[in-house]
């Protein structure tokens, strides 16, 4: 087994340190080392988006990033989105629009939607669909998800 590396990073605004093996993905580190299990593993090869997080302002599949790569960087995950007494407007919009059924893809969709709205606060329906095409949902048919993101854009 290769030696573990020491990594210092910022996650949801907090400084975090951890040890990880070179082969551990960011997703594995988040889930198994830091117990941030909001990011989900659906495919582990970048095709479903359930593990989406924002790395230095850029949307990534955390299964395609190595844990060691985030040294000195800043990661936003679903766990950092809500305030203590208040959900993020995208989270509210998902609830209001019934935009989830089983909910396994929901954290990934919400992080993708956040990355979209951070870049483009007033997207068209087509832009929403284009941006979210990297996230798979098998339950909803996407209709209510797209509406939720458009509603969240309108609300902010």
């Amino acid at each position, binding site marked *: 087994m290769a030696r573990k590396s020491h990594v210092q990073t910022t996650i949801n605004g907090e400084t975090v340190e951890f040890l990880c*093996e070179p*082969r551990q993905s960011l997703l594995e580190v988040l*889930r198994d080392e830091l*117990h*941030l*299990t*909001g*990011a*989900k*593993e*659906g*495919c*582990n*090869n970048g*095709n*479903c988006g*359930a593990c989406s997080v924002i790395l230095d302002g850029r949307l990534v599949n955390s299964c395609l990033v190595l844990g060691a790569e985030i040294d000195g960087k800043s990661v936003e*995950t*679903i*766990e950092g*989105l*809500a305030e203590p007494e208040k*959900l993020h407007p995208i*989270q509210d919009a*998902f*609830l*209001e*629009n*019934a935009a*989830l*059924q*089983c*909910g*396994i*893809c*929901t*954290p990934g969709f*919400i992080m993708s939607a956040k990355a979209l709205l951070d870049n483009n606060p007033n997207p068209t329906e087509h832009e*929403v*669909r*284009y941006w*979210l*095409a*990297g*996230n*798979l*949902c*098998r*339950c*909803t*048919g*996407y*209709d*209510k*998800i*797209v*509406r939720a993101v458009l509603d969240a854009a309108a609300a902010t």
Partner: protein
Amino acid sequence: MAEKKEYKVIGTRPIRHDGVDKVTGRAIYGADFQITGLLHGRVLRSPHAHARIVSIDTSRAEAYPGVKGVVTAQDLPAAEDKIADLGEGAVSLKYLCDNILASDKALYKGHAIAAVAATNPHIAEEACELIDVEYEVLPPVLEVRQAMEPDAPILHENLRTSSLGETGDKPSNVASHLQHKKGDIDKGFDEADVIIEREFVTGTVHQGYIEPHNATALYNPDGQLTVWCSTQGAFTVREQLAEILQYPISKIKVVPLEIGGGFGGKINVYIKPVAALLAKKTGKPVKVLMNRADVFEGTGPTPASYITIKMGATNEGKITAAQTSLVFEAGAYPGSPVGAGAMCVFAPYNIENVVIDGYDVVVNKPKTAPYRAPGATNAAFGTETVVDELAEKLNIDPLEIRLMNGAKEGDRRADGPVHPRIGFIETLEAAKEHPHYDSPNGKKYHGRGIASGFWFNIGLESSVTINVNPDGTVNLVEGSTDIGGTRASIAMQAAEVLGIPAESVNPTVVDTNSIGYTAVTGGSRTTYATGYAAYEAAQDVVKQMKERAAKLWDVDEDNIQFTDGEFSSINGKEEQISFRDLSARLGETGGPVIGRATMNPAGAGGAFATHVVDVEVDVETGKVEILRYTATQDAGKAIHPSYVEGQIQGGVVQGIGWALNEEYIYNDEGEMTNASFLDYRMPTCLDLPMIDAVIVEVPNPGHPYGVRGVGEVPIVPPPAAIANAIYDAVGIRMTELPMSPDRLLKAMGKI
């Protein structure tokens, strides 16, 4: 019983009770579960589609640092050829066990052979590669027609065809043949002026839930086995574990965690018994997770099929006869959903003369599992395409021919049951009245298609308890997995009875030690049957609370009435107390109130849907674009309309994927070549328009609020509707699924 009336809670759209947990990432799904001392398991799978297992040597894996235990089929109790009763029909125990860990033969690529528990998942994976398995590779058979040939490779030497009560005398891949007959088929075709007969082929598709299978098991020295997992039914997991491990039900506790989709694919167990065996062997809790390739290659897809449909109609449009042969692949072990397909194939129509033959055929693919209205989508692809062709030949509007022949209350299905009050005609009328149906449709390579579908829905057992809190809220305890918002739809039915807001009911899904038996979340049964149990449990609460009010006011119980959340005395004393205020006085009137109900309701009304779709065919690339989609469906009564719409929209989109892209692609060696989400192409949001879900409400007389199951039927019409739209666009009848660009180009003569 059910009639149209005004409700306070039912029909509204409250925020779901588990919503905040799920949008904040806090909800604990199966793979998120953590426990002290956890080991990680990994399954070694067969690289061959068909092979005899000559030997397995686990010694190198056992010696690998970090490995704590290795198991093979040798660790399972000897499975005699006993029949296991799992509540939903008898299953051969040997087949059940062999699908968990292969004993003598590997019957598909991905078939589990052995498993390792280690201190981390990477070590477990590396150790799997150190297990030496000697295989004698056999030729695979992958297609039902080939599997039925007399000289086909045989999967099970002891399998004999069971056909209409007779058992065959030589080994066969045809596990069973069933038949339904009604009327006189020859007379029916004699009466027809037009007869259409077509062949259809559909591909193997997967349920495609985003969350892979998972299980964490702990075996305590006192013999108590606990399994934490995501599943469509904790009680069926308990039953399957008890059968496979030959272990007492009383010593098994199954704790259902949140589930990331199932669609029928998370009823059968795969790695749960493996986790239990590893936990027993190591004395530690063991978590086993599948990866995506494992899910595609090792868990139930839904079957490919070969279907012939022959239907005849008079010049006036009356369908006089219908005949079909449904040949479904079962996968490696018997048990395809051909029986359900046979029940649904002609069920939307009242046809006097019908013959339905169904064949269950084993092939070297994973054992098939239910997938949303199992069997009905395959069957409807055939029927609804032929009905469209009949309409065209007779120059009758495709909605009109369905209205002329559509099944109504009192019509008998070919498989026996008589339709109770159903809403098929109403879904057709809703489609006809929808602006979509009359909108312009004349552009080149644009086309419009319609198709309908039926699913019978089921009841089965459900249990609910309701504990009344002193602040007038209640805690509702249930055993039904919430896979898409049923905490809300069940809680709302209790809230309606109790006259309290939906938010005042706190629903919790609990483990198998904490609630009465509850069957799986499947068959579109949960809002219907567990909702019915919640209704009855709430009635029980009301009854007990009336007794408390009577005690409080020293009047006879018969003098207490309960309306709009208020208890009042109707004779003599003028007393009144709200549900909330009385809740605070339970201690002084006799102690806590717990309402309870268990049931197995028989009146799950059938579900019908009619879909209208517009497509554009790109004749250069063969790609089909969905331009507009309208789905009408009889929901009986929509408890939470948003989640009914969601079921419809989600079912439609799965049907679109099945229609246009999804299939298992195999090479000659029987290896699936597209076992990833990159190559098994499920629809993304960029592939789709909004899906207009139109809820029709024809109350189901078998439920106090008129509920019908809604989850499954929306997947049934899309492939046929899209095929009919493609025909309208380019004049070609597609009879093979998926209607992918290559198949379309071939059909158009372009390649």
